[in-house]
């Protein structure tokens, strides 16, 4: 049977686990990075406490120096000392006198003038930005008993990208740690979400393969979230399915068994009728033939419904495929000869497997009989047994070909359905029970094999593939 599932996805990036993991981690990384950028943009160094303190200290240093100089000068009562620009005063220091004029000849930047007007009376240091400058002040001081304000105006030092680089290079260990920790959490989250889904997937596959007793593991059902609920519902579903399938099988078996009682009575009644009447023997013969067919059909239905989906170890034995096939071919060939047909084994290769020879034999037998039925007189049914080796697996390929009319392409898919008939007319060549191919399919599947059919114009080719096993000497 062709599995309805696509093969397990191999590309790791298309697996849900990696999808969740990578997306969450990407989100985390983006968040951290954008926060860093925002920090670099919005916050200027003036807002960083250490840098503010540095600026304040610088301002105070110059202030104190000016005060000391002014004290010495006042003792000498030298009035020119202040009027004359202090040669030691760095160019970023601006001293405003009480009338708002600076002691410099150079023009005061507009931003600083504006800042000065706003803050000249403040007792605490203020910080502001403008015109590419960082401005700090005022430092209140008295020179010659007149109030002065000292301001520090440094060019705003850093470009955004440089600042970003500064942050990244100064704090790289923090960033790496953040990434690793967030990565770990994303990993855990992805595992937490995906592992129960994998459990569910495995269980679903097992059910599709016919193992209706499958239960989702406790890891899933013990969860209190939606996935846990899904697991519980899944178990309920699989139990329901299992019950339904069992009920159906039981019904089929029961019906078949029940049919036997009236059939037995019919046999005996027919025997009585034969004894009691003289005429009608031909009709009685027909009735007897039909009883035989009905009996055969019931037997096949029972066999088919018994071929359960598992083959326990006790039912397995070592089966030599060439032996099994050649014996079968000898027998069927004998029967075919009565119809002026033949069954020949064209090719065989030594191989075997652990399985049930009776079940396997019935599979091949049903297919060969079918082939005999449809191949024309004076032609042969040909059987091939070959071995195909792939990397680590060996597969026995059994091909059975007839030279009959074949099957319309659109019917091929239904060939293994119970009671499916290509031609809706019954009787004559269509006298099979309609279960042979279905039994063959189940038997092959019980041995982990596959079976399919193709037209070979003229005729039909049935291809059975069975995994073979190395022989273990017991």
């Amino acid at each position, binding site marked *: 049977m062709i599995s309805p599932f696509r093969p397990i996805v191999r590309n790791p990036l298309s697996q849900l686990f990696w999808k969740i993991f990578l997306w969450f981690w990407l989100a985390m990384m983006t968040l951290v990075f954008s926060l860093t950028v925002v920090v670099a943009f919005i916050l200027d160094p003036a807002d960083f406490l250490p840098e503010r303190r540095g600026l304040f200290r610088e301002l105070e240093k110059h202030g104190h120096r000016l005060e000391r100089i002014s004290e010495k000068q006042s003792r000498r009562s030298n009035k020119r000392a202040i009027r004359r620009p202090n040669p030691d005063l760095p160019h970023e220091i601006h001293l405003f006198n009480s009338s708002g004029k600076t002691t410099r000849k150079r023009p005061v930047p507009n931003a600083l003038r504006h800042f000065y007007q706003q803050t000249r009376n403040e007792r605490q240091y203020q910080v502001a930005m403008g015109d590419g400058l960082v401005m700090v002040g005022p430092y209140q001081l008295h020179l010659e008993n007149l109030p002065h304000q000292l301001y520090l105006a440094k060019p705003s030092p850093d470009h955004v990208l440089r600042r970003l680089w500064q942050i990244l290079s100064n704090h790289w260990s923090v960033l790496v740690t953040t990434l690793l920790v967030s990565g770990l959490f994303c990993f855990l989250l992805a595992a937490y979400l995906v592992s129960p889904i994998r459990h569910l997937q495995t269980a679903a596959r097992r059910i599709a393969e016919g193992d209706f007793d499958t239960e989702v593991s406790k890891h899933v059902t013990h969860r209190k979230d939606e996935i846990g609920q899904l697991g519980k519902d899944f178990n309920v579903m699989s139990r329901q399915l299992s019950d339904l399938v069992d009920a159906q099988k039981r019904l089929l078996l029961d019906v078949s068994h029940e049919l036997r*009682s009236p*059939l*037995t009575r*019919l046999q005996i009644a027919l*025997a009585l009728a034969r004894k009691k009447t003289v005429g009608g023997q031909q009709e009685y013969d027909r009735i007897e033939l039909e009883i035989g067919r009905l009996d055969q059909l019931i*037997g096949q239905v*029972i066999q088919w419904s018994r071929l359960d989906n598992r083959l326990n170890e006790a039912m397995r034995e070592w089966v030599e495929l060439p032996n099994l096939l050649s014996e079968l071919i000898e027998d069927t060939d*004998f029967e075919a000869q*009565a119809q002026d047909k033949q069954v020949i084994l064209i090719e065989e290769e030594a191989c075997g497997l652990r399985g049930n020879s009776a079940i396997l034999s019935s599979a091949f037998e049903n297919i060969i009989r079918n082939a005999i039925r449809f191949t024309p007189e004076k032609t042969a049914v040909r059987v091939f047994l070959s071995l195909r080796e792939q990397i680590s697996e060996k597969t026995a390929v059994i091909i059975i070909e007839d030279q009959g009319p074949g099957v319309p392409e659109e019917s091929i898919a239904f060939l293994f359905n119970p009671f499916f008939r290509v031609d809706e007319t019954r009787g004559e060549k269509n006298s099979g029970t309609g279960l042979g191919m279905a039994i063959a399919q189940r038997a092959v599947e019980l041995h982990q094999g596959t079976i399919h059919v193709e037209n070979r114009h003229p005729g039909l080719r049935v291809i059975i593939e069975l995994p073979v096993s190395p022989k273990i000497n017991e």
Partner: protein
Amino acid sequence: MSEILLVDDDLELCELLSEYLVMEGFTLSTVHDGLSGVEAVNTNNFKLVLLDVTLPKLNGFEVLKRIRQNTKVPVLMLTARGEEVDRIIGLEIGADDYLPKPFNHRELIARMKAILRRTDSSLPPEENVQTLNIDDLSINLLNREVLLTGKVLEMTATEFLVIKTLVEKAGTLIGRDELTKIALGRRLMEYDRAIDMHVSNVRKKTGPKPDGSPRIKTVRGSGYFYITD
């Protein structure tokens, strides 16, 4: 006193069988559950017991076990077809033969007669020739046994008739219609392959001759014969 006890819960079948077996010259008593079956065997002296497996009150195997505690009366078990396990259990606990349902009346009579002949020495021999011997086969016509190099082959009544007929007329062609008439007791029908199956089974069971050559040959479309040298 009746010779045969039928233990079966299918009342209608019991009725039909009684009538049929009487026509065949047997006398028959019927009971319909396991317990009465045991009681009937213990209080009467039957020549043969036909015992169904599925019975109310006490199933066929239990009945057989209890019967075997007191008597060696021959028992033919009627099992459901395909129940290989039933057959094995039945034979293990002392059934003389088994017959799957639904059975053919000829098969039933043949088996009953075979058992009776084996166990009842008072029955006169049917024919003068008692065994047919060919190659390594030996066919006992009295108790309907086929022996292959001394080992008993398990055969249905139909298969017995097939091999007996082929051996009796060894070397000559027997048509499919004739063989159908003899072994199945009816005419050959169109598209009737039943006899081919039976011959095939016989061939399978008897295998090739000691020298490895085939035993039975098909003549295309017309019939079969036993190969003689």
